[in-house]
């Protein structure tokens, strides 16, 4: 569905990504994990059109995304939940959702979509008239996901959705996301610092370090591998622990 091949990305003179390749298949949950500053969000920005790769290409269902502006990429069916939520805090919850459906075809069915999102996150219906800035952190995260779903995407990019949320809230949100993936076949690409949560949700995973992809493979296998445990989960080799 989405294929990134050999992209390099620069911020001005500074190279942030080296030769990144990854694929996301239809209906999959794929995750990209790594420490702060590894370049995870940079990949997200490249897919959603906020940054343009200097070399390499990004293909989505046979369409090259490299030269398209961000709003065209949304029209093609890729929607992103940006890091740090980025809600329109001065606007109401309902207005935030409405702005999410900017495409003509999604605008026509927006009432149905809003109804569906209220089912996923009932609290948003209660808060519909409230300004988005007055919501709690978890509610804001739900609203950002709802806003991203308003464009009826085929591929949903989630950037650091666990950041600053209570473990209970993270559980609740990841349950909803898994549900959407199962019931509607929505493809999910999840970028996370919370390695355990991400790898246990996903089917496949990529691990990034310093702008390069270091490991990739089955999520369960990655979760079980010694390097990942040691570097990200704070668990030493099992033999040592046994002693």
């Amino acid at each position, binding site marked *: 569905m989405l294929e990134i091949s050999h992209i390099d990305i620069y911020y001005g003179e500074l190279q942030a990504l080296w030769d990144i390749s990854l694929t996301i298949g239809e209906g999959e949950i794929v995750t990209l994990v790594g420490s702060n500053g590894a370049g995870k969000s940079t990949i997200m920005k490249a897919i959603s059109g*906020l940054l343009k790769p200097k070399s390499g290409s990004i293909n989505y269902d046979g369409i090259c995304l490299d030269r398209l502006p*961000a709003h065209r990429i949304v*029209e093609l069916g890729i929607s*992103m939940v*940006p890091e740090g939520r*980025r809600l*329109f805090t001065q606007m109401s919850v309902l207005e935030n959702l409405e702005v999410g459906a900017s495409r003509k075809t999604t605008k026509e069915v927006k009432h149905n979509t809003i109804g569906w999102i209220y089912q996923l996150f009932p609290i948003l219906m209660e808060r519909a008239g409230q300004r988005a800035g007055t919501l709690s952190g978890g509610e804001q995260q739900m609203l950002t996901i709802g806003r991203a779903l308003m464009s009826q995407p085929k591929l949903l990019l989630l950037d650091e959705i666990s950041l600053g949320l209570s473990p209970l809230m993270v559980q609740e949100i990841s349950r909803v996301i898994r549900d959407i993936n199962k019931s509607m076949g929505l493809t999910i690409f999840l970028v996370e610092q919370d390695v355990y949560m991400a790898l246990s949700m996903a089917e496949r995973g990529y691990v990034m370090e310093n702008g390069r992809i270091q490991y990739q493979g089955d999520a369960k296998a990655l979760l079980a591998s010694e390097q990942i445990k040691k570097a990200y989960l704070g668990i030493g080799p099992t033999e040592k622990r046994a002693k």
Partner: protein
Amino acid sequence: MGIVIQAAAYGIVVGAVYGLIALGLSLLTGVMKFLNIAHGSLVILGGYISFWLFKLWGIDTYLSIPLVIIAMFLVGLVLYKLALSPLLKLPNIGMRIDTSMLITFGLVYILDNAMTILWTPNARSVVTSYTGESLGFLGAKFSVTGLLGLGVAILTAVALYFLLSRTYFGKHVRAISQDAEAASLCGINVHRTYLISCGIAIALAGVAGVIIISCYSITPNSGLSWLLISFVVMVLAGEGNIKAILPAGFIMGLLESVSALAVGAPYREVVALIMFILVLMFRPQGLFTKRG
């Protein structure tokens, strides 16, 4: 007492014009982060277009407003395409504000001199059948042109408010003014929204120009003095507070006309600028904004 009411009658019309100019200005600064120094010159250009429509085809000033709006909207589109859209490539918003100031400052000279060539440096005004007529109210005389201008300004401001609060376009504009990048991730075509907002802002300047030429007179370089006080009105209303701009304009207009009575007309702008400094010192968020 009569003389104060008379001054107020004058001030409220002037204030309406300030309000209209400030509406366009704050649309440009709020949404696109462009500071348009040429806005005053564009107001005057709108006045001259109305002047020509009257002189050449005998179209009444207030009836010429739709035509002026269309013409100035197109001017706004050209302005955006030629001068302002290249600034969007600048890496940060601070640079965008600075550079737009420099560019539009240059534009002031181009526009003012072009208008001098086209319409001579003489003061121009439009004299219609109802110019000079007035209605008595509370012992003061309200000129018909002033009342019409006031009505047009209020209608225009209300229309803009509804456009921004009720329509999809308005929601896009507000979303972009808060976070342009997040807006583009929602599928909003940011450049097209900028383009149309710029057209609307310049069309508002045109409407202000029509009121000015019908109530007062214009010269090619009178734009900057209108602009200066409109900037104060914009700050008075507070950032992004569209609802408060016309009322802030009225306050400024009344303050100006009453202070002209108290300390003399030459000090009008001094009073406006003292007001500006006081607002910045004590209520930098604006008079009508609650949150800091």
